[in-house]
């Protein structure tokens, strides 16, 4: 008489193995996004396809959902060509920080105000304005030294962009971090709440 065999482990179902593969890809996507790769943060669409396969957008959607409890999200910034390959994907805060939190990140209220005014003005002027024009406008509200310091700092950090003709434009970081449409609306709405 043969000895009784121990029960065999249940074979993984197709759904479970799919889920495991998706989990693996999600983890990989997170690692790829969180690590600094080049000078600018984020990973382009073609790189994502190489790391995660052609269904990378679905993986990134899953990751974005998974990151919700941590207050993060996967955000995509359309590239200059407007193609999927040139789109840049990056991790960013899902909720906006408070003013006090922004200050702890090294931004003074005046610095933030200069950036807000610059973004709004550049957008209202068809996305480009000469540096001189911008500085002349800001001079009416901020001290001269603050303007020079802040504008240079924001150009360096990628929030503003300046070309060789000294023409200011919105920088890649603003496109990635700031909801410009909301900013314009909020600025226009400021001061009206308390109006009697």
């Amino acid at each position, binding site marked *: 008489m043969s000895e009784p065999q121990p029960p065999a482990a249940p074979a993984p179902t197709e759904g479970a193995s799919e889920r495991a593969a998706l989990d693996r890809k999600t983890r990989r996507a997170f690692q790829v996004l969180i690590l600094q790769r080049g000078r600018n943060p984020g990973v382009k669409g073609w790189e994502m396809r190489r790391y995660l396969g052609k269904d990378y957008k679905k993986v990134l959607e899953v990751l974005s959902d998974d990151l919700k409890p941590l207050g993060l999200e996967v955000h995509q910034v359309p590239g200059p060509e407007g193609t999927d390959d040139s789109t840049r994907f990056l991790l960013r805060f899902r*909720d906006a920080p408070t003013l006090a939190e922004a200050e702890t990140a090294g931004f003074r209220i005046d610095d933030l105000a200069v950036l807000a005014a610059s973004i709004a003005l550049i957008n209202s002027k068809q996305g480009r304005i000469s540096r001189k024009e911008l500085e002349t406008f800001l001079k009416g509200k*901020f001290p001269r030294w603050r303007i020079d310091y802040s504008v240079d700092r924001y150009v360096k950090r990628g929030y503003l962009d300046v070309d060789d003709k000294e023409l200011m434009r919105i920088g890649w970081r603003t496109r990635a971090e700031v909801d410009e449409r909301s900013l314009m609306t909020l*600025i226009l709405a400021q001061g009206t709440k308390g109006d009697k």
Partner: protein
Amino acid sequence: MPAEDRDRDKKLEDILRLIELCRTVQSSSVNPFEVDIREKLLVLKKYIPDWGLIDVMLKDSEAMQQLVAIVKLQSQWITHRASALYIDPLLLELKIQLISREELAESLAKCWHPIAQLDQLTARGLEKAFVYWRELVPFGERYKYQFGSFGQQTTTIGLEELESLSIFTKEEFETRLNAIAKELSEKSDGREIDYRGFINGKDPEETALRGYLVAFVVTEGRATIRTDPLTEQIFISTIQGEPGEETKSVAIVVR
């Protein structure tokens, strides 16, 4: 100058003016529709049979290229104006001037989603740091051409040296020392007085000299100095009788 040459010069001037206009529009936020493309194209078309020189023809093609850039700008202008980001600049400028800096900052903070990323040392960064360090000029050499040599290091100067430099004589020094000790005794009247106020002279030289003399008075045990740890204010008072055993040397900067 013959009339024909004058006419050709005028036409060339028109082309150069057109190029300049297009460049100005491109390098400012002026409405690109200010340039009448149709009119300018007709001008170029009218002039083209008159050009014989290659240089002038190149200017003509440059003007054409600039007009193309303006058409591109016009297209962007329409796209932007049709988007939700368009707001009348005058209205926005007025609004920005009216609201406070805090309100502006708050508006930005409310729609700001900072990027989350780990900063780390990359191979490129390491290489950059290495090249920077390798090419960094030694500190001693760095500002040599700007400020010259650094001169002699700061050292202490003793009474003997002052005597040898004829700044003091022994008798004069003793007289001054006694005079300042007497002045301190009179001013303090047994109480503590502000050190900086006491040594303050009519000019920096006199202040330094009084500070120097007071240092001797204190060293001889005829006065004592106390620093308030909270305000960092320095007090001086005379000592009646024998000085205490707990003495220590302190350095005070005299400005």
